[in-house]
């Protein structure tokens, strides 16, 4: 077996040194009637060629995003990732290292985490960011629990523009943690009255912008009402690239900002691993979940970085911890940080403009088709369109014509009466030909 260096001679010699005559003597604490006598009923070992062939067949039974005109978004986005990123994250010293608990031999990881925290704070317009969560949705759940700790209240109001999966994650966590969670009705046109929901029993309000349907939302009035009532505003985003072009939540009064960072540096990966971004105001830092990296000096006075404020964390505080999170998204944060360092603010702004311009162009082309209307007043790179028919069926028909048209809202909100609404995303990877192919194919199936 190519991964196991011990030879049978090694094994025999080592058993002798240990002073036992059979490997099972080392497993003597397992009740003898529970020790397996036979191998599990699974195939035997395979060489690289066979494994690659088997897995390759499965890969081939899936249609990849790059192989077709691709407009699928709704919380995960197809973007171009510079080749440098994937090369660097495969450096052994990054890929095969552990959580930096021994800072003297983990300055590489710690420094990029510090860079990551700086980048996330700047993008969101907040004071501090942590070293990542699993993804945007779980970060959102943690943000709500954090708000409950700060306000000592337990009622969350979720906007109807929040990604339905995020709402489900918060709902599940809230039920289990015996907290109240009010989810407003799906809000395609960003017309909901969230202000009337806010009173002094509310712990936090969770609003996404750009929202699930693509609308941009001004958070200022909501923030003001929250603060007047002692509640916190949690701002959510699922498309981090939007922050290159739109006013960051931190400048609109958000107290906690959480979102999905996948768009910068990370592949689609069929939904994971992704990287949750989590930022807040300085005064709340000790209530934050997750790891934090901080600057310090070594014994010679040289600048260096360590994990810090760990008295919030489970390995120290156990049942009094701010969260149970341990492993986070280390390597995905690295991919994010490298891509963001390559972009810089200049590159980010440019790529965000391209995303927006492409989406504006496609919105114009689609709304020119008879029976098709774009529902958004505002959007970044994704918008909702109403189709003259069932969106899920049309998406299937378009898929058979090798166009991935978007996400039918009914897939995430079944029974919401939005069966004719399709979410369409358009990023920098889409060309004029892609858009043309989409428009032509849609005309054919309508």
């Amino acid at each position, binding site marked *: 077996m190519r*991964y*196991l*260096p011990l030879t049978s001679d090694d094994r025999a*010699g*080592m058993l002798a040194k*240990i002073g*036992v005559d059979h490997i099972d003597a*080392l497993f003597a604490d397992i009740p003898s009637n529970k020790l397996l006598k036979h191998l599990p*009923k*699974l*195939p*035997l070992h395979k060489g690289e060629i066979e494994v690659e062939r*088997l897995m390759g067949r499965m890969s081939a*039974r899936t*249609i990849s995003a790059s192989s077709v005109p691709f407009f699928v978004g709704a*919380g995960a986005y197809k973007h171009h990732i510079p080749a*440098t990123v994937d090369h*660097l994250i495969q450096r052994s*010293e990054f890929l095969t*290292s*552990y959580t930096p608990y*021994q800072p*003297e031999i983990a*300055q590489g*990881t710690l420094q990029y985490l510090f860079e990551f925290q*700086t980048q996330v704070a700047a993008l969101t317009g907040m004071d*501090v960011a942590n070293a990542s969560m*699993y*993804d945007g*949705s779980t970060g959102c759940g943690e943000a709500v629990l954090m708000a409950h700790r700060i306000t000592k209240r337990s009622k969350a109001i979720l906007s109807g523009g929040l*990604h339905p*999966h*995020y709402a489900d994650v918060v*709902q*599940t966590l809230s039920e*289990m943690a015996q907290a109240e969670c009010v989810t407003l009705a799906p809000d395609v046109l960003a017309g909901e009255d969230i202000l009337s929901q806010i009173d002094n029993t509310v712990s936090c309000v969770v609003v996404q912008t750009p929202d699930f349907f693509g609308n*941009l939302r*001004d958070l200022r009035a909501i923030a003001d009402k929250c603060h007047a009532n002692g509640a916190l505003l949690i701002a959510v985003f699922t498309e981090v690239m939007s922050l290159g*072009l739109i*006013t960051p939540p931190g400048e609109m009064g958000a107290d906690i900002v959480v979102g999905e960072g996948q768009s910068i540096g990370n592949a*689609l990966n069929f939904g*994971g*691993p992704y990287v949750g971004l989590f930022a807040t105001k300085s005064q709340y830092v000790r209530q934050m979940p997750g790891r934090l990296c901080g600057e310090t000096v*070594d014994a010679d006075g040289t600048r*260096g970085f360590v994990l810090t404020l760990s008295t919030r964390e*489970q390995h120290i505080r156990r*049942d009094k911890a701010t969260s149970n999170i*341990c492993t*986070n998204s*280390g390597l995905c944060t*690295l991919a994010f940080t490298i891509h963001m*360092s390559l972009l*810089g603010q*200049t*590159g980010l702004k440019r790529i965000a403009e*391209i995303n*927006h311009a*492409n989406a*504006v162009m496609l919105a114009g082309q689609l709304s020119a088709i008879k029976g098709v209307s774009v529902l958004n007043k505002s959007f970044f790179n994704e918008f909702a369109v109403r189709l003259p028919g069932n969106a899920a069926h049309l998406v299937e028909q378009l898929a058979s014509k090798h166009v991935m048209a978007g996400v039918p809202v009914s897939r995430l909100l*079944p029974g919401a009466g939005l069966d004719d609404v399709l979410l369409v995303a358009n990023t920098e990877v889409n060309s004029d030909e892609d858009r043309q192919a989409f428009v032509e194919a849609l005309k054919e199936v309508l």
Partner: protein
Amino acid sequence: MLNRQGRPTTPGDATHNDHPTFTGNKALSQIEPLIFETGRLETTGVDYEAPQSFKSRLAELERKSEIGLPGVSEPEAMRHYVRLSQKNYGIDTGLFPLGSCTMKHNPRLNEKIARMPGFSDVHPLQPVSTVQGALEVMHTLSHWLMELTGMDAVALSPKAGAHGELCGMMAIKAAIAAKGESATRNVVLVPDSAHGTNPATAALIHFIVKPVPVREDGTVDPAVVASLAGPDTAAIMLTNPNTCGLFEKDVVAIADAIHAAGGYFYADGANFNAIVGKARPGDLGVDAMHINLHKTFSTPHGGGGPGAGPVVLSELLAPFAPVPFVRHTDEGFELVESEEEASNHGAHAFGRMTAFHGQMGMYVRALSYMLSHGSDGLRQASEDAVLNANYVRACLADLMSLPFGNRPCMHEVLFDDTWLKDTGVTTLDFAKAMIDEGYHPMTVYFPLVVHGAMLIEPTESESRASLDLFIATLRDLAMSVKRGETERFTGAPYHAPVRRMDETRAARSPILKYTPPQAALEAAE
């Protein structure tokens, strides 16, 4: 000594520390500023043409403020991050005996396969008809996990070990609620030796944590469990093999005691690497167990993630598994994504753990690892992991102290600091001296049930020669302690990219992001 050209071939007697350099660099060990100190606000390392003019649809929400993040060109980025990487220790650098973390070899075949377009370049919300291969990976992985654990179902979506714990405990909470016992059954027993995530998880969803003292041999006493268990008991969270490196020999009696009280048995599967192919949690009375794919099945740790924490469930808990899950039908693979849809299949899904379907990138790597090993290789890996740990134990038992006696351990061996008493050297000092010798330290000060713990997990990836050198090194260090050479330890590390870090200072006045000098100056005024 000089060679024939008169060039010295051995260094002089001066140590390297006496030769400061102009740059502060030490050959391959380079001082590397933060990216913000080298980058420029107008620079970017990507080339994109400006879009043609268009009518913005941003309402009044265009960003007016400067983001304040400089960019760098591609060669600068490459050099910056390569230099940072050189300040890191990884499995590929050397032996990484970090107990409880299973730092085994990460086969690069798995990286290659994870990047196949049918896995990496696929959107989670593409039509199900276009992602059959991806769903097949999830289905096949589930099959392997159920076979290896002897359990009835698996919830794949949890994103890491602690998230898997949360998922398992939520399933237990849902099962208790279904029996109408929510109000009364709310205590979770957690042994003192447990990972910190266990009590944190239980507390997160409002269970009351009741600690279970560990008996003198490092294991849990079923009689104590029986005495603590009652009608208020929701579950026990037991790590097996436990964090002392021992298999809980009374695990079946413990399971019986919990079940007799009407509670559930949650197993922390962090140490599953010791028993794959040797014993099945399902045969031991386990109701739910998470599996750290990034430990046992070698998806890379990546500097602290991403992980993946699928949870295997017993027949009793299976109906409560969260959405989504994959079903195999005559027409192919289906994805059940909502609770309503789940109930059409007779399930009572307790909800959703995460957006989309979990850590696909990790599933692919883990499945590739499993296919490569096969049932025979997986069992051999566990046997080798246990053999290696016991070999280390046998070779160090005369110099270092074993809190539970010199008896067989599982895949990790636990020492305490009794042998360091009155030497002026602490566990931490000893660990830092290992860094100078080119090793990553073992896990220190965990588990909490022994004083100054040193938990060594060599994994199956080490050859005998590698172990022999590691053992010889630890023996040399131990002898050095006993000779009173405390400076070798208390000042260590001397040879790492940085010296020992001031963690107190970091926590007292936290600096959590870079602030440009000018802004820092203004803020101070």
